[in-house]
Structure formats: C-alpha cells, structure tokens
C-alpha cells in the first residue's frame, strides 16, 4: 500500500514539477517522474496480489469525511493494467509531444498526470463521494486531453458530445449509488451488500449502475461518444482512453457484481445480450470505417463486447452455480481487459505514427507504408494479429480461455442455458473472424501495396520514444501470447475472489497445465515455420534465386496505385450483405458512354444508434423546448401577467382548501 501511495504522490509530483521545469526539459522530466510513479504503483499492486488485500483510511472534513483506499485482488489487477498502459502511453506520448515544440504543454501534461492518477483512484476508492470525485476527475482530465487539437471544430463537437455522455453516465451512477445508500444508510461500498436483501430493488439499482458504467465502457447502444472522442484525441491519449480508461467502466460492473454477490438471471442475460450485440455490431461498424482511428475505436466497442461476454457468462455462472463459467469466464474477461489494453494501445500508437507521418487518417489515401516505415508496420501487423485473437499472440489466449469456459460450462448448464452458451460461442467465433477480416483490411490497405497519395509516399518511421512505447507493448503481447500460464494463474486468483462453488485453485490448476501445453504447441509451430522458411530460402537460392518484376496485371503492364483494391472494395462483398443493416449510405456515379469522363463511389457509415436513438431524442427535446418559446417574448405586460395568473391560481387553490 505504501508503495502504491508513493506512486500516486510521485505521479502528482510529475504533474506539478514539469510546470516548473524549462520547456526543453519539461517532457523528459515529466516522463521520468510519471514512469517512476507508475512503476511504484504497479509494484504496490504486485505485492498485494501476492500477499492479499490492504487498505488505508484518511479522515477528511465535510463533505468527504472518510476516504478509504483499498487494494484487493480486483483493484490490484486493474492498477497493474493502468500502470503498465500508463507507462507505455507516457513513453510514447513523450515522443509524440516532441512534435509540438511551439506549445508550452504545461496544462496538457498536468491533465495527463491527473488522468492516470484519477484512474488509479477510481479503482481503489471505497466510498461513494471519493469514487465520484475520482470518476469526475478522470472524465474532466481526459476531456482536457481530448481537445489538445483545440483549433479544430470537429474536435470541439466531439468534446461536447463526450462531456455530455460522461455526465449522463455520471447521473446514472449517482442514482444507482443513491438507491443503494438509502437502503444501506452509508456511503461505503461494502455496506451496499445489505441493500441486496430486497431483490427487485437491488436489481433496479444494479441495472441503473450498469447503464452508467456501460456508457463509460462503450457497450452498444451506449457507445455513441466513443467513436467520436477517440479519433479526436491525440493518439497517445486515444491509446490510453481506449486501452485503459474505458476499462474503469468494466471495473465498476465487476466491483458491484462482486459486492452484490449473486446477480439475478435477468441481469446476467441482459449483460450477455448487450455484450454479444457490442461484439458483433461493433466489429461490423469497424469494417465500414475509412478513418483508421474511428475503425480502432469501433474495435474497442467490439473488445468491450468480448470482455462483456466473459462477465455475462460469469454472472450466469454465479446465478446457476456453474464453476467453470465463473472461473474461466471471469478469468477470460480479466485477461482480455489486460490484452486489449496492450494491443489496442499498440494499434492506436501505430495509427498515431501513421497520422504523424502521412497527415491523414483516411485509409483510402494510405498504402505501401511498410516500405517507408517498416518498424511501425511490423508492430502494427503484430497488433492486428493479436487483436484478431490469433495465435501465437495474447488475444488468442483470452479468447481461448473464454471458449474453454463455454465448452466446460455448457454441459453443466441446465436446459436452455446450455444452448445460450453455445450460441455465445458461435457469436464469439463470428466476432473473431470479422475482426480478422477487418484487420487484414487495415494492415493490407494502410501498409501494403503501393502508396495511394504523395503524403503516404513521403512517410517515415517515428523517433525512438514513440517506437519504444510501442515496442514495450509488443513485448508484453508476445509474453502473454507465448507464456500464458502465469498470467492466467494471476487472473484466476482474482476470479477466485467471487463467490465460487468448490475449490477455485483446484479448478484453475488443470487450465494452467493446458496453457503450458498451448505454449509448447505454439513453440512447435514457430519452429516449424522457421524450418519451412529456411527450407524455402534454401530451395530458392539453389533454384537460381528470385527475379523481381511488376505485379501480374493479367496482361496489362501499366498498373498504377489508383488501380489497387481499396478498403471499401475489399469489404464490399460483406457490406453488400450487412450494409443496409448498418445504415451504410452509398453513392455511385456509374460510368457514362463509350469514353466515360468520371465515375465515383462513396460510402458513408452511419451509426444507427446516433441515427435512431440520439438524434430523435435530441430532436424531441428541442421540440419540447420550442413549446416554451413564448415565455421570454419581451413584452412586459405579459411578464407581469405570469405573476398575476400564478397569484390567482394560488388564491383559488387556497380558497378551495379552506
């Protein structure tokens, strides 16, 4: 705990001192202190994972009164995720901000420190007010980070949108807390368990809380802010927001599931259903995007869905007392929280490097970057393989655990529940393959082929710090992918803190063994690949080597960059099937005549939630408001009339009363 507190203080110091240091040294000073602080915090979390929960209590005057910071297994895990993601983000950010020598960055760096700090506090706070304070601090500091590129109007709109979404979430969470507080009579989370005696009441409160946290986490249909805010933010921030911040929503859901103990069936099924929806629809939306960072943002929705699947299964397991579902579902979800933090960070940083190099996020204008920025390309492809959940990388491990949960859990689940679990497995598979489709598109169109614009042609790899930040994540990805056993063991201990029928450790042990086998198989695969590749090179060398020539154009010799397959054309077969469901608007100018002058095809992905939920809502409110337009008409007599009428009504009411 002391380590953790020391870390927090160091982080705060980083935020404060950088303002005092002269501009050239500022970023470096900040980065050093921040990384140090995060290392301390992480170390603190590690020790708690080893030795069990610790907590510290501060006494404040009104209104906070008591502030308890506790590190139990769950909090410790999230602290680890935050600190690792934070370290990578800080290092990368140090490089990324190097590109703005003309800006003081005092405020930005301070907000950055507060942002990470507040996340650490959110996952350790144990009373209502401190939690809400930390939560709000998190939202506001991230808001400040989002409008880094302040001149841009698009950024401004995204900021407002983000702000409002965060406060709707805030209001919902507040309401949920208030409901619990009235029953428990205290602001301590631990006391909320008392409220669960009243089943339906607790369920309502939980549903409201879930809605609030779901907005932060970005579950469909609560995701609307996410694909707007994340692209607007500078990449080192989007990486952290997408990789780490939205996980605080997941944390909230887990924390209160843990407090409540056994959720109702309805709640579990709602979570599962929304999770599946988010996973599948999220990735479908991602496929339709042309903006690289928007695409990644929608993948965050998808991955939140995958995490949600794990949580939903675990909730179901808690309800029907199904060991594998609880243990493996929860473990899979937590593992995926970590994994998503790793590869989504990496991918956003890669996208940032591309944006920095080519000055566009439009996939259709990129291409062939692998030649110009090989390191970034390699790292991005690595991330893509990982996020597609493919072996031998970390994404596969968490999905593997989830499949295990389903295969092992389904037979033990009575009647229809079993079928639900199997259908979940099918949807998870669909999600995985769609992700694969989407990231072959992202890698293929952005990095491979020939450049589609001069900007892309002039691109080059970023500097050391940015690459270092990405490399750090890449290493972690490989580590989790190739040596999953210890990581699983860790999350299993966290999962075991949930009310579990039977001995969790005993159930976890065989899985650890299995994962050992998995890593051996993966090693076998890699060596086989190495061998084959060696063979191939040898053979080619022997057979008279490789001749370079133009790509086979089916007889046509003058292929240009513009003749390449574009992202839209690559996904067009799928869009032909699902486009209408997604509200994809396409616009085609067919070639006319023998010698067509021009022909064009455009496609605009529209988010159905925006189109059919939020826009009409806003319209309705605007309409209702317009009903009150007459109030401030400017006519004084009318103003006085209000008072007179009110008076008359009041007197009539009194006369009626007496």
């Amino acid at each position: 705990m002391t380590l953790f507190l020391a870390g927090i203080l160091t982080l705060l110091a980083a935020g404060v001192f950088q303002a005092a240091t002269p501009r050239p040294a500022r970023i470096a000073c900040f980065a050093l202190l921040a990384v140090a602080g995060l290392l301390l915090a992480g170390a603190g979390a590690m020790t708690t994972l080893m030795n069990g929960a610790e907590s510290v209590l501060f006494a404040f005057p009104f209104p906070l009164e008591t502030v308890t910071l506790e590190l139990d297994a769950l909090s410790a895990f999230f602290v680890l995720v935050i600190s690792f993601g934070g370290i990578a983000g800080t290092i990368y950010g140090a490089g990324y901000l190097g590109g703005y020598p003309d800006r003081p960055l005092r405020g930005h760096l301070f907000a950055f420190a507060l942002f990470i700090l507040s996340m650490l506090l959110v996952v350790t706070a144990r009373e209502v007010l401190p939690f809400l304070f930390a939560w709000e601090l998190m939202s506001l500091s991230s808001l400040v980070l989002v409008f880094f590129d302040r001149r841009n109007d698009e950024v401004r709109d995204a900021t407002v949108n983000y702000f409002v979404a965060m406060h709707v979430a805030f209001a919902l969470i507040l309401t949920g807390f208030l409901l619990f507080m009235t029953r428990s009579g205290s602001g301590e989370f631990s006391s909320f368990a008392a409220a669960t005696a009243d089943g339906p009441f607790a369920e309502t409160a939980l549903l409201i809380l879930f809605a609030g946290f779901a907005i932060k986490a970005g579950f469909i249909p609560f995701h609307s802010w996410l694909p707007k805010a994340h692209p607007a933010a500078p990449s080192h921030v989007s990486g952290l927001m997408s990789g780490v911040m939205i996980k605080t929503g997941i944390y909230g859901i887990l924390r209160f599931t843990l407090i409540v103990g056994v959720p109702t069936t309805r709640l579990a099924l709602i979570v599962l259903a929304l999770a599946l929806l988010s996973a599948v629809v999220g990735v479908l939306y991602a496929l339709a995007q042309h903006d690289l960072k928007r695409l990644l943002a929608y993948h965050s929705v998808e991955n939140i869905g995958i995490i949600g699947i794990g949580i939903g299964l675990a909730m179901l397991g808690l309800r029907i007392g199904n060991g594998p579902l609880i243990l493996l579902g929860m473990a899979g979800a937590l593992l995926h929280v970590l994994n998503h933090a790793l590869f989504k960070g990496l991918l956003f940083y890669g996208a940032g490097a591309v944006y920095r190099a080519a000055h566009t996020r439009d996939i259709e204008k990129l291409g062939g970057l692998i030649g110009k920025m090989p390191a970034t390309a390699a790292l991005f492809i690595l991330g893509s393989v990982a996020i597609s959940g493919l072996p031998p990388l970390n994404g596969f491990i968490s999905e593997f655990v989830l499949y295990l949960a389903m295969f092992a859990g389904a037979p033990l689940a009575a009647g229809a529940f079993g079928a639900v679990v199997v259908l979940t497995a099918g949807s998870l598979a669909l999600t995985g393959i769609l992700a694969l489709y989407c990231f072959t598109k992202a890698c293929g169109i952005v990095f491979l082929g020939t450049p589609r614009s001069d900007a892309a042609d002039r691109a080059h790899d970023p500097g050391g710090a940015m690459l270092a930040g990405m490399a750090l994540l890449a290493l972690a990805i490989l580590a989790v992918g190739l040596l999953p056993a210890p990581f699983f063991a860790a999350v299993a201990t966290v999962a075991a803190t949930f009310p579990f029928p039977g001995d969790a450790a005993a159930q976890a042990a065989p899985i650890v063994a299995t994962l050992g086998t998995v890593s051996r198989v993966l090693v076998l695969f890699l060596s086989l690949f190495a061998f084959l590749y060696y063979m191939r090179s040898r053979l080619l060398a022997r057979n008279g080597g490789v001749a370079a020539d133009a790509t086979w154009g089916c007889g046509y010799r003058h292929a240009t960059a513009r003749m390449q397959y574009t992202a839209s054309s690559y996904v067009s077969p799928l869009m032909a099937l699902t486009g209408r469901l997604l509200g994809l608007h396409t616009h085609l100018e067919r070639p006319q005549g023998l010698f067509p002058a021009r022909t064009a095809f455009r496609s605009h992905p529209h988010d159905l939630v925006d189109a059919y939920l939020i826009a009409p809502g806003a319209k309705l409110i605007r309409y209702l408001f317009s009903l009150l337009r007459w109030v401030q008409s400017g006519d004084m007599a009318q103003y006085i009339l209000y008072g007179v009428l009110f008076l008359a009504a009041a007197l009539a009411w009194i006369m009626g009363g007496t």
Partner: protein
Amino acid sequence: MSQILTILFGVGILYLSLTSRMRTYIQVIALQGLILFLLIARDFGELDWFTFFFLSFETLAFKTLIVPAVLWRIVERTHVARETDPHIPQFGSVVIGTAVFLAGFAVTDWVSRIDPSVDALPFGIAVSTLIIAFFIILTRKKLITQVMGYMLMQNAVSLLMIAMAVELPLLVNLGVLLDIFTLLFLFLLFLGKLHSAYEETSRERLTSLRDQP
C-alpha cells in the same frame, strides 16, 4: 360619511375603467388621493399627531397634488391625449369593469364570512381597484398609462390598509413613503428618457430584449 367616500372612490375607478383619456386618469388618481386623505382625517383622533401629519402629507400633498401635477405635465409635453386603441374595445372594458366589481365583492363577501372583522365595503372597493389596476397595467399600451396603473395599485393598497386598520411602525411608514417617492421620481425620469429615445412610447416598442430556446 366614510361609506360615501369609499363608494365615490369606487365610482372613480369604474369611470376610469371605461375611459381612455389621460387627463381623466390623472383626475381620478388625484381624486382618490383626496378621498384617502379624508378617510384618514376622519379618524385622526386615534393617531398621534406626528403620524397623522405624516399620513396626511403623504395622501394630500403627495398623492393628490405632486404626482398628478407631474403626470399632467408629461401628458401636456408629450401630447398623448388618449390611450390609443386599448387591447379591449371601450364597450368590452365597461363590461369587464363591472364584472371586476362583482368579482371583487364576491371575494369580499367570502372573506368577510370567514373573518367578520374586515370592513366589507372598503375592502371590496380596494380589491376591485387592485384588479382594475392590474387590468390597466396588463391591457393598456402607453407606458404612462401603466405608471398610472401602478399609482392606482398604491392607492388600492392604502385603502386596504385603512380598511383593515393595519398600523405599521412609523419608521416603516417613512421608509415606504420614501421608496414610493423615489420610485415615482425614477418612473418619471425614465419616462422622460424613453420619450426622447422612442418617438412613440408604447409597450410594444420595448421588446428588443428577448430570447428563443
């Protein structure tokens, strides 16, 4: 005696509700001031001489002479002879005037049945005056007419005080008088400024400050 005075007061406003000539308004206001003075003078025995002097000053000098005189001068200067097309046509306002009276007395009747101590006649007249005052403020267009409406309100309030025999402490009375005095002064001041700012000072001209949601 006081009955007759009170009724006279009432007749005054009834007449007022159906005229639209400025001068009539002013005359009625002055008349009411006079009546109020007489009503006070009637029972000066109960008052200590200072309060009496003070109240009579308020009603006689202030309400009866000074204010009507100033209003008169403004009317003279700005040639607003009559309230041009009030929202409700003449005949309508006659009907409304009488209706208001009936309503006023209905209320009074109801009140006096609950609290017999109230003196029904002046109370009823006061209430009706009040309503008429609001009626004028709400329907008339000329700003000066609205000021007169406000004066009517003040007179109604004074009558109400007399009707309910409520005595406020002297300090308070002084303050109230001071306020009303300054207020009317301000009214007249800004009325002058408005006249110089707008060629024709009707309520509709003052609607530049407004909002749309």
